[in-house]
């Protein structure tokens, strides 16, 4: 009786096995990379209603972050400034600028400017700005170098795993109080000693429990 299958079919199971492994790895790898916030969220740069430049204000003009985001040390929210804060200066500076038209409109009509949120956490995560600043975590660690950003984009994935990396080892992210808003700050060589001291002094012990952020 002749053979039904040709000889090359002997290798078929091996091919199938290899192909399956490759396919599964590819699919998992695809989602691992392209599905993670590191790919989907980092670099998110929506167009804002006002072409506001952080690079100009915070970078070139050297304004402190807290001139506008003034509740960041008091509240869970780092507030987006009211139109009034813009108008404090822009009543006199560039009062006719086209770029500032939406701001003047908001001020005149008493209608708020609707900014597009860049850094978005899910509703069940309760992040507290004041607690982090108070512990000595600077703006840069989560928001990147805002001073260099013409239009703000998301610098970090803001995923739970990313949060926990720092909660498990906060030391590299702690800085002196006066450097909190400094985007160009470089840790001095003896930073480890400083971090250890500040952790002890302020009893910094970041929670890794669910209750730390979820309620």
């Amino acid at each position, binding site marked *: 009786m002749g053979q039904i299958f040709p000889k090359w079919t002997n290798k078929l199971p091996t091919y199938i096995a290899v192909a399956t492994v490759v396919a599964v790895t590819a699919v998992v790898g695809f989602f691992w990379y392209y599905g993670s916030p590191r790919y989907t969220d980092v670099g*998110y740069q929506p167009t804002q209603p006002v072409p506001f430049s952080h690079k100009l204000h915070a970078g070139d003009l050297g304004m402190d972050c807290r001139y506008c985001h003034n509740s960041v040390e008091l509240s*869970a929210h780092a507030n987006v400034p009211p139109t009034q804060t813009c108008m404090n200066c822009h009543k006199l500076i560039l009062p006719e600028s086209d770029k500032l038209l939406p701001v003047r409109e908001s001020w005149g009509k008493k209608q708020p400017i609707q900014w597009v949120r860049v850094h978005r956490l899910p509703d069940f995560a309760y992040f507290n700005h004041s607690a982090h600043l108070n512990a000595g975590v600077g703006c840069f660690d989560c928001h990147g170098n805002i001073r260099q950003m013409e239009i703000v984009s998301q610098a970090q994935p803001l995923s739970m795993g990313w949060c926990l990396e720092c909660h498990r080892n906060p030391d590299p992210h702690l800085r002196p109080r006066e450097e909190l808003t400094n985007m160009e700050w470089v840790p001095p060589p003896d930073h480890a000693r400083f971090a250890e001291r500040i952790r002890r002094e302020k009893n910094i012990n970041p929670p890794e429990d669910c209750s730390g952020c979820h309620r």
Partner: protein
Amino acid sequence: MSKDKKSRRTEYWRSLDHLHDSPSFQAFQERMHYHRHTLTSNAMSRRNFMTLMGASMALAGLAGCRRPVDKIVPYVSQPEEITPGVAAHYATSMPRGNSALGLIVNCREGRPTKIEGNPDHPASLGATDMFAQAEILNLYDPDRSRHVLNEGAKSKYEDFVSFWREQLERYQDGRGAGLAVLAEESSSPTLARYRREFTRALPDARWVTYEPISDENILAATEQVTDNRLELRYDYGKADIVVALDNDFLMHESGSVLAARQFAERRRVSGTDDDMNRLYVVESGLTVTGSNADHRMRLPSSEIGPFAVALAQELRKQGLELNGLPTIDAQRFDQTWLRELAKDILANREKSIIAAGRRQPAWVHGLLLIINEAMGNWRKTVTFSGLIGRTISDTSALRDLTAAMNQGQIDTLVILGGNPVYNAPADLKFADAVKKVTTRIHFGAYVDESADGATWHIPRAHFLESWGDAISADITHSVVQPMIEPLFGAHADCEMLALLATGRDQRGYDIVRETWEALFKNDFEAKWRRVLHDGLQAGSADKVILKMTRGNLREVMKNVDLTPQKLSASGLEVNFVQSNVADGRYANNGWLQELPDPITKLAWDNAAILSPKTANDLNIVSGDLIQIQFDGRSLEIAAWITPGFADNTITLPLGYGRRLNGRVADGVGFDTYALRSTGTMHFGIGATVTKTGRTYVTANTQDHNTMAGRPIVREATLEQYRKHPRFAEEAVEHPPLENMYPPHDYSQGYQWGMVIDLNACIGCGACTVACQSENNIPIVGKEQVEKGREMHWLRIDRYFGGDENDPAVYHQPVPCQHCENAPCETVCPVAATVHDREGLNNMTYNRCIGTRYCSNNCPYKVRRFNFFNYTSDMPELSRMAQNPDVTVRSRGVMEKCTFCLQRINAGKARARLEGRTVADHEIQTACQQVCPTKAIEFGNINEAESRVSRLKQRDRNYNLLAEFNVRPRNSYLAGLRNPNPALQAKPRHTKKKVHTG
């Protein structure tokens, strides 16, 4: 079933079904413990299911690709005092009848979200009750009226103003004849000022005050005895003996919040040397006060007066000087009870209170006032406060007004708040009488029964939107200030009355300020700022000290018939009582509708409550629809059997059966006002009952979440406690508790714990509503409650013990116990419920996949499952009431008490910001903060000197189901009763130990 198990089960029971272990009870338990729920009653067909699922799968794939665009909307110009994300707190007061409750309101970005008591207010000392808590939901009620209506069509307030100016001019020519105002009770000095102005301008106009439930009878008595119309006030903190005759002073009398606080202060037994007060209650229906009694006697309401006379007679026999007392045949009352009660009262001269409730007629109050005076209680435990412009309901004036309306003497009727068409006595036929009035002006928050057919309807602002003022029961002058602009452009009470009296359309702020300017002689601005900050004028509390002027018993008791009334199954006594929705004004409030009644545990309904014996005589079972014939009127209502009610009486809670209130209230329950007449405002005799043969489905939670007959609630008498101080802990014997796993280390940092004092808890239910408000707990509705799916994180278990007809009652609040060895955690397949290092049992909603294993394994049955997305169809406006610090849960997710995690985190963040640790008592849970009796204490158990640690050291402390080695963080202080040793006390305390293991 073994004999032991049987006897244990009957020691404490939730319901008669539980006591007799009826098939329906077993079936419910089976369903509850094994969660054999069906999802919906109208099951979906397979085909529909496939269609829907297919479509949603296809759509889900598309929607998932795009990141949602979120907007940030800042202020245009930010108010100075607002920091986004930080709550602002403002003091205000809640006007309540002729008194007020001091409040602190928590506002988020200008939006009130939570009400707390004002600790500086002497009339409440920081406590509130379920009604005050529920006001937040009333503020955001989407059914509130939104427009001025003229003949039912939308109109403008300006149009009404010009209409009224014309009217006013016309009436001023005729001195106001033909004009009548029907108002609610009020304590506001501003309203009093404009009322005077109104009467001055229109002397012949009628001003009638009416409330369906009021202190009218009590004031009539003070007038008779002292010559002054005065409000009676009791200081329960100074009384060793309290005798409450038909007097629910812990729950439904005026000033109950303060009374509960004072009463509980005398029951905070810290050791075996401590003493506590003794409460005797004589009442017909079982009330919250009655359920806390040390001795309780069931008597029909019509026998309470004669009982008071018999007691007076006994007191006189034992040496109290009482002249002019009519004789009564006291044989029909328990002689030993009377004798020992009188002896106990006389042994506590100047330290006792003998008080009747507002349901009793004036002569009973007059008699008790004279007894209290003879006992030397006046000035000590019994004081008076002046009315100073506070108004009191006058039912006879309402009767006269209705007669005048029927005779066509009234052509304009202004209904200023209130809902007389719904709640006026049925014999007045008020609804027909209003139709004879040419112009009816209705001022109210809802287009309700009284607004139906009115010429004008003017929306009334909520007190959280209004300027105003009020005087509390202790005469503390308090201010009402708005937390938010009126949502629907409604007008405050003072603005409306100012317009009525003067024709001027003024701003509330100016009106109130003007009143207070007259109050302060000099330095107004500074004092006024202080008042606005504090919410009250410090030191304005006042009481009236007086002597009895002419009151003598002969006068008080003339025309009183003391012959015993024959009550029987064919001549029953009906009683009208307040309910969870008060007199009906809270009927559209879902929180209060869903809160089970403290005694009957009925939610979303009222029912005719009967004692087991009466029901047996009438051959009625719970849930039967019955027809009550009374006084020529009839009412069809569901029957509900509850132990502890007097035989041959029917108790009818008021406030349900609303016709025109809103989507929550309408058609819920039965309108018991239909049987109430001017002669029988509170009780009456001669009702008959017939069965209709039909039944009615009620949502009753009394058998929900039972803990399978284990010794849960533990209590003893004071005497037993002194002999066995550690009785509660020793009630259960178990083998040594060992764990398979290495223990967690809880020795560092904050370790949160709670203690609930069962001796202080009165079972009022304020904590449940406060929890619902704080934690965004959904309202699920009657159908879901009936299936056992209520979502309350904190429930109050009510147990009966002893005699089936005359049981002892115990209340036990049960939140999540936050076990250190939590059984829920070990069975969760996805680690959605885990422990944190501060000892809290966390529930992580976004991990939960809804297996409900945790709930099955929870011995306390405190976990709640979202069978539906209860919040999704919540009106946008009601969502404004939600706490932004708490996640709103979706369908398919388990939830439970978190010990108010958001408050703990906020407290810790605040302390860290200020560079310190959290102080003791700094973080309060919502249930703790609201509690009128301070029964709940929360704090750090790692700190030896914290209040909670000290309470846990007390000998009455016990852990619920400690024998399971779950190590709960919440513990209880066992309840105590203080019966008179001379009276044969019913055995209450578990003598037999329960062996487990």
